[in-house]
């Protein structure tokens, strides 16, 4: 991922995009540009359309209008799927038969080779490295169904990393994860962010990711309600609904002085008649 080019192609560009299911529009008129190196938390209350937006971007929910482009290529003509690493929610994994962490992560390599070709030694090495990156190098041969919730998330992150993507799209990676795993998970994400990995993280627990994200996008009732730096977001939240924070507090006292690790790259764009 290079950020040295004068005008890098955006990783993702949405222009007036709408997504939903059948004819029901869930999110509408979304304008969003993700540049290489962005680490974005996509926030919003339950039912605000966060998951539908992410699923729509990935082609899992219907694209009902507007433009969606990956690396400058319209979504319907985009075929280079290895460049997008998707980390779904944990319950998407079937646990009906035995499968080791290594076997699940190896799935991330499939889109790199034709259907008739078996995995090679290079694939095995990449799988091993991906599991080591998420701190599960010693659990390769473990049946994933015996791992803890947080460890299963990290297996899913490793699977996405094994496809060597240019952006990681994660759906609620920290939800319902035990404390020990939450620390490791935060370290893994921090490490990836430091390496310049572009990430779009759907979450309602900003606190766990506060030191990692450099941009916050907030959805409310299917439209983008805020897009800007974590600092600007804190101000926006205070002005928006005093005393009714539906997100966890960005301005928790113990983190207030540290602030975001990276300087904000995006100018806040308050919408919907806000005068924050």
């Amino acid at each position, binding site marked *: 991922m290079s950020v040295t080019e004068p005008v890098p192609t955006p990783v993702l560009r949405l222009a007036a995009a709408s997504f939903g299911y059948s004819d029901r529009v869930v999110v509408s008129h979304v304008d969003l540009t993700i540049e290489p190196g962005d680490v974005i938390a996509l926030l919003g209350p339950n039912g605000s359309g966060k998951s539908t937006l992410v699923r729509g971007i*990935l*082609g*899992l929910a219907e694209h009902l209008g507007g433009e969606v482009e990956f690396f400058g290529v319209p979504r319907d003509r985009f*075929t280079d*799927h*290895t460049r*997008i690493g*998707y980390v*779904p929610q944990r319950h*998407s*994994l*079937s646990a*009906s*038969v*035995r*499968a*080791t962490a*290594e*076997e*699940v992560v*190896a*799935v*991330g390599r*499939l*889109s790199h080779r034709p*259907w*008739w070709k*078996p*995995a090679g030694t290079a694939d095995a090495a990449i799988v091993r490295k991906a599991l*080591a990156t998420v*701190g*599960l*190098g*010693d*659990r390769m*041969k*473990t*049946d994933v169904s*015996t791992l*803890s919730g947080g460890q299963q998330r990290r297996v*899913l992150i490793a*699977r996405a990393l094994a*496809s060597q993507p240019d952006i990681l799209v994660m759906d609620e990676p920290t939800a319902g994860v*035990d*404390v*020990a*795993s939450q*620390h*490791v998970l935060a370290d893994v994400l921090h490490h990836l962010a430091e390496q310049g990995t572009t990430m779009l993280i759907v979450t309602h627990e900003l606190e766990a990711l506060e030191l990692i994200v450099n941009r916050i996008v907030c959805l409310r009732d299917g439209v983008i309600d805020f897009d800007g730096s974590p600092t600007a977001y804190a101000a926006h939240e205070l002005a928006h609904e005093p005393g009714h924070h539906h997100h966890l507090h960005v301005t928790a006292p113990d983190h207030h002085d540290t602030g975001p690790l990276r300087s904000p790259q995006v100018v806040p764009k308050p919408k919907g008649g806000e005068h924050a």
Partner: protein
Amino acid sequence: MPDFLGYSFMQQALVAALLVGIAAPLVGVFLVQRRMSLIGDGMGHVALAGVAIGLLTNTQPVLTALAAAVVAAVAIELIRLRGRTSGDIALAVMFYGGIALGVVLISQSSASSPANLTAYLFGAILTTSSSDLVIFAGLAVVVLAVTLTLRTRLFAVANDEEYARATGMPVTALNLTLAILTAVTVVVSMRVVGLLLISALMILPNATAQILGRSFRTALAWAVVVGVLSSVLGVIGSYYAGTPSGGSIVLLAIAAYLVVAVLAAVRDRLAAARHRRAERHDHEHGPECGHEAIPHDDHVDYLHDGHRHAPHEGHYDEHATSAGGPS
């Protein structure tokens, strides 16, 4: 040399049993993984209608059964794809309609007898013609080749369909392929185990293998071993005892499952008696956790305040604390 190997019909029967014993668990594991264990049963019901049409019209029953089962397979996948709750009812109509139509049509056929119907329902490999066996063998080899080539992709789709779709895998095409592989396996196995019992040979060896294996790969290998042993020994047993091959094979597969399940339960009880949980801690051991890592058989122990912690499900176990190194 045992005397049965001298008969050409027994040689053919054993080749057929071997092929079915490999193919049925190999395809079946993906049905188990997708929690569609009983779908093969339904396809068998519909295949019976195909057999009946073949007998009535004097066409090869194998071919009409194959056509009926493949049509059913595609219909099942399309119903599933639409994801309606009424899909269940649609499947029930199709499956019971298939078997009812089969029974009624066969009763009208002059060429058939109740014994004929029983042979299709419960398997009668020793009375199968060698021309049929050649077709079965050819189809079985195709099923094996396709399943083995596509196994990592079939695994990926069954393991996490949403991820497979998001990464651009042809999920619908792969699901249709699996459905058609299942249909072909049902028809290939119909003379060996019978249309009412074929699902058992797809599922039971996998149930046994899930206890024996520790990964998808090793479990699949065990499933094939159990499948082949059940079908080959079942055919030999039916030769000596004069029993229908299908029932004999399935009883052997069940016996294998029960023996393995009981032994595993005993082993787990013994392990639980020796099992000592470590104290709870919020720290997660890992390669970079700072605690000394000690390889121990198939896992890694971590030296924590002088005792060894081994990850076990959601907690840590105390393992041997002797300073003698890994045992």
